[in-house]
């Protein structure tokens, strides 16, 4: 698993870089974020939840069965929305209310 950062969407706030538990994200010369060590991503999605521009997607590596779907989150009205874009263009969304406990 790793992440892909859309350079054109990045606003250079550096929040993803701050929060990465592996210090894997850096800012380039123009101040935009990139993942310097893509193989070292744990897949924790901390950066994705921080990004105000929704510029970061995570995906499963092909070696663990990944087929190219991309995930990001958006938070609106206190609801964390997990948005999964599949390669065929279809989109799935799961909304999570952080105030609700897991059932399991």
């Amino acid at each position, binding site marked *: *698993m*790793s992440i892909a950062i859309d350079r054109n969407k990045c606003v250079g706030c550096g929040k993803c870089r*701050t*929060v*990465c*538990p*592996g*210090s894997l994200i850096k800012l380039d010369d123009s101040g935009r974020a990139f993942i310097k060590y*893509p*193989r*070292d*991503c*744990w*897949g*924790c*999605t*901390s950066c994705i939840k921080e990004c105000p521009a929704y510029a970061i997607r*995570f*995906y*499963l*590596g*092909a*070696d*663990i*069965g*990944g*087929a190219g*779907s991309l*995930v990001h989150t958006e938070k609106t009205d206190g609801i*964390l929305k*997990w948005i*999964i874009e*599949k390669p065929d263009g279809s989109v*799935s969304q*799961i909304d*999570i209310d*952080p*105030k*609700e*406990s*897991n*059932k*399991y």
Partner: protein
Amino acid sequence: MKVKKLDTDILIIGGGTAGCYAALTAAENSSASVLICEKAHIKRSGCLAAGVNALNAYIVEGKTPSFYADYAMNDAAGIARYDLLLTMSERLNKVTARLEKMGLVILKDENGRYAARGNRNLKINGENIKPLLASAVEGLENVKVLNRVNIIDYAMADGRVAGAYGIGIEDGAFYVIRAGAVLIATGGAAGIYKPNNPGFSRHKMWYPPFNTGAGYAMGIRAGAEMTTFEMRFIALRCKDTIAPTGTLAQGVGAKQINSLGEVYETRYGLTTSERVYGTVNENQEGRGPCYLKTEGITPEQDESLMKAYLNMAPSQTLKWIESGLAPSRQNVEIEGTEPYIVGGHTASGYWVDTNRATTLKGLYAAGDVAGGCPQKYVTGALAEGEIAALSMLGYIRDNEPADIPEEDIALHIAEAEKFTGGNNSLFTTEQLEEAMQTVMDSYAGGIKTNYRFTGAQLEIARQKIKQLVILSGRLHADDPQELMYIYELRERLTVALSVIAHLEARKETRWHSFAENLDHPEKSSEFGKKFVNSRLENGEIRIILRDITEGGEPYEHSDR
């Protein structure tokens, strides 16, 4: 290197679960200055970065702390410290209430009481548990957090731990921190063995790949007594995503089945290690792959599982959605992970007294780095952080800080500058890391040998790891982050040598898979009453067998 000198009453190395709670405890019970050094950023560092699915250590209504301690003793087949388990268990509910006050969502029943999941667990929404802990700490006046400073060694003075050395991975500075007392809370060690998916997804592992055993290695080098490294932790996980399985097993009652559809878990036993061992054995005997039987669960259960996994291991939900095969439509394939060294699940780590003092004066340990106290999970790590912090406050009242000798500082700076100086290394840090993982996988009971090993194999592992230690001394780093990677590799190599020595020393198979010794395939009554401890003396690992006491008798705790 630019040198930065700092002074604090209490130094906490590692701002994860145990470290943050220790800081909170110290701040609330004293006016002592507290400094947390964290190699990433405390908001999402450590085991809880992605969240956690449940609180697995809680005393539910009608149960007692000794019930939990007995459970953990039994799961460890008797190799655990009852004094540590009990003192931890007594605090589990108090720290849970505190977490709720910080904002953690815990499921309640219609009467407003916590709804238990089984005999020991609470259901929560743990996605934001680490940000909650971090913000509680960041608001404290006497607590300072140094993010992105990687501690590389203890500073010793007057025969005690007097502080620590670190390297800023962004500013490149060399930090010399003098402290009245030091808490080690760096977590356990991943990445010593070859992972399930060593290619692009090598870090898609259960335990944080950034927990490199720094605390264990620093203690080993400084001559601390360490315990039970032979009790490795191997997790039973969802294939490929290495996501936890407890949510499926306990949440929807999914049983472990083989490819013939037979429930096999009952044939092997239900302790943590037996669940792994059964899966390995079924595969070996031609009845693989193995699954958790989820086919036939309801669409509502599917939906709840999708959400629960997003709150702790989002890759599993992605896999279900991407494949179009929700758990109700396809059983979830399972496998064992590579072995980890992690004192929050097994009993590996520092040999501590009941107050969580290590055998090194001035040094305390809490969380996954502290030994003897398995099944502590999140709440147990918090409890240990609290116990250790209170002990440290007592220590700094009675002991003056020591001055760190300048020549020791110079030695440590010289070592770091050697790695950043001229580059004549044939090998890269990554190559040596992969070499270490291959050695451990092949000769010290990794996935490749179904976690089994012989004494002859361990001897080969020892020689090969020692060779890698020599090679690692010649590595080169271009920047502070690469320098951190060199130190991390050397930490893992140090831990690997101790793991090998411990596996060799326990001449029995007490836990299947965790320590499957083919020379001694049965349990031994003699070793069933012994801790395998060790201490580095004159560069050699000396094994110390210590008796397990009966009825809560105190433990031998030399060097103090």
